[in-house]
């Protein structure tokens, strides 16, 4: 089975490792990408007959490097071209490269490639776009569609982002342990950003953006293969798997948001849930709690509940308290208020919102949640005000439409 779609999957899988190693050779992103492109072209010529080689990444690194060196020599108009025979015996060369580049090299290479995208001067969305382009190898058109912008606008953004990255001095020696941990944390945050770009999309654009969620999960699994004993990477992967497991149930046929309580749980992806729960179980063993692990544990409690009534809200409340300690934020407290409303009723939950008003006054979810609590308390006029405010702050048409449904119910009952 050697048709192009399968070869494409093999090239996609090998890309992070190959581009990362080529970047170390050439110390220049454009050159590394060009070398990889050249190698892919050769792969498309060679692989269809015999299928991809056993170590596709090593093949691509070797061929990409040689092709690029040829190009440089040619452009310098040197007469002495390399001996073709020297690169024609790929089996041998492949073995040598594979030997030289052991796992530790690959790890640092790939981490570096991801890390250069996390450039502090680049806005988050550009970091994400850059990573999708150079690490994941998504086409400019795919990325443009995911960000709902035109292709040429995205092309320009990527060019500017690459220029920024090229100016930055990224050290090429192997990082020390503290530096490696720092890079890993920054890269993990970026992977979660990619996920959220996909996850937070509204109904009608959800299909265009779903690939971002899948790509983020693929990158997280890659990180986890490189750093198998990092509980926060397990937590991050679990969190994304558990959230993405609900993708088919989060919007109805009209693209309207369906809340967790109302979702058809048979549409949840059981395989993702199993993998997410397995990872969170593994992570907990390390007894090094972190924000991703706690959020994943919360998502796992929702995933384990066969019906909304089975949800273990007291455990969720405890986990949110842990999260408040690890990563204090009014948004975390807002989420805990929802758990408290289930445990102690809307009055206690509403009291928790008061101190948050100053900091979350412009936050869509704050007013949506507040409106829901007020509605449960029968304070319908105040609920309407909160919902109106939420609609004004909605980030997507689907969010606004969802709050309008609440308003419609209010109008019926008042």
């Amino acid at each position, binding site marked *: *089975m050697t048709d192009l779609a399968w070869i494409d999957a093999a090239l996609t*899988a090998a890309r992070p490792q190959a581009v990362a190693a080529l970047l170390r050779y050439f110390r220049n992103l454009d050159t590394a990408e060009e070398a990889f492109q050249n190698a892919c072209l050769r792969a498309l010529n060679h692989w269809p007959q015999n299928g991809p080689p056993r170590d596709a990444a090593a093949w691509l690194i070797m061929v990409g490097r040689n092709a690029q060196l040829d190009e440089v020599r040619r452009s310098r108009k040197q007469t002495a071209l390399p001996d073709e025979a020297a690169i024609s015996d790929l089996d041998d060369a492949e073995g040598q490269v594979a030997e030289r580049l052991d796992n530790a090299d690959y790890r640092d290479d790939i981490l570096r490639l991801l890390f250069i995208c996390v450039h502090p001067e680049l806005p988050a969305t550009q970091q994400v776009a850059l990573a999708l382009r150079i690490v994941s190898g998504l086409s400019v058109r795919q990325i443009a569609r995911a960000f709902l912008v035109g292709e040429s606008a995205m092309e320009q953004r990527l060019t500017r982002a690459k220029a920024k990255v090229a100016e930055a001095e990224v050290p090429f020696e192997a990082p020390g342990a503290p530096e490696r941990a720092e890079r890993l944390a920054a890269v993990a945050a970026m992977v979660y950003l990619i996920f959220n770009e996909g996850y937070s999309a509204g109904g009608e654009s959800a299909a265009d953006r779903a690939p971002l969620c899948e790509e983020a999960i693929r990158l997280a699994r890659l990180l986890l*293969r490189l750093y*198998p004993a990092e509980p926060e990477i397990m937590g991050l992967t679990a969190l994304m798997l558990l959230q993405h497991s609900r993708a088919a149930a989060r919007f109805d046929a009209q693209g309207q948001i369906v809340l967790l309580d109302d979702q058809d749980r048979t549409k949840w992806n059981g395989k993702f849930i199993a993998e997410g729960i397995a990872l969170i179980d*593994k992570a907990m063993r390390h007894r090094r709690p972190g924000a991703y692990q706690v959020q994943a544990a919360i998502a796992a409690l929702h995933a384990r509940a066969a019906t909304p009534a089975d949800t273990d809200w007291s455990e969720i409340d405890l986990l949110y308290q842990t999260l408040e300690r690890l990563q204090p934020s009014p948004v975390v407290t807002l989420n805990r208020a929802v758990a408290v409303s289930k445990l102690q009723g809307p009055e206690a939950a509403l009291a928790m919102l008061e101190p948050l008003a100053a900091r979350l006054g412009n936050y869509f979810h704050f007013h949506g949640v507040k409106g829901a609590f007020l509605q449960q308390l029968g304070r319908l006029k105040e609920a309407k005000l909160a919902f109106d405010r939420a609609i004004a702050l909605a980030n997507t048409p689907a969010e606004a439409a969802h709050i309008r449904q609440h308003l419609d119910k209010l109008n019926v009952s008042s």
Partner: protein
Amino acid sequence: MQYAILCYHQEDVVGAWSKEQDDAVMARLIVVQDKLVKQGRLGPVARLLPTTAATTLRKDSDPPLVIDGPFAETKEQLLGFYIVDCTSLDQALETARELAAANPGGSYEIRPIGYFAPNGSSGK
């Protein structure tokens, strides 16, 4: 005789398949499975979650060490298995060939089973 047909593949490549590609492979494998069921030759079948979900208990030290990840770092990973009743190695190979034709890439290890307890009973 019972054979285990162990399926190895590079999981990063399998992970790069689109959902359509993955579904297509599964649909083709189901055809082969159905045929084996009709012949009364198919035992348990499993597709394993990625090795990133694996944990290994190593007995090199006492007490045994718990390690995150698969037992061995290999180019191709054990991603699933079939238990199939076969009259001979030739028949087992024939079955593996049919499974291989349904699945792009990867390798199959055909391993005769010495002890089999499908329901956890004392076996045969």
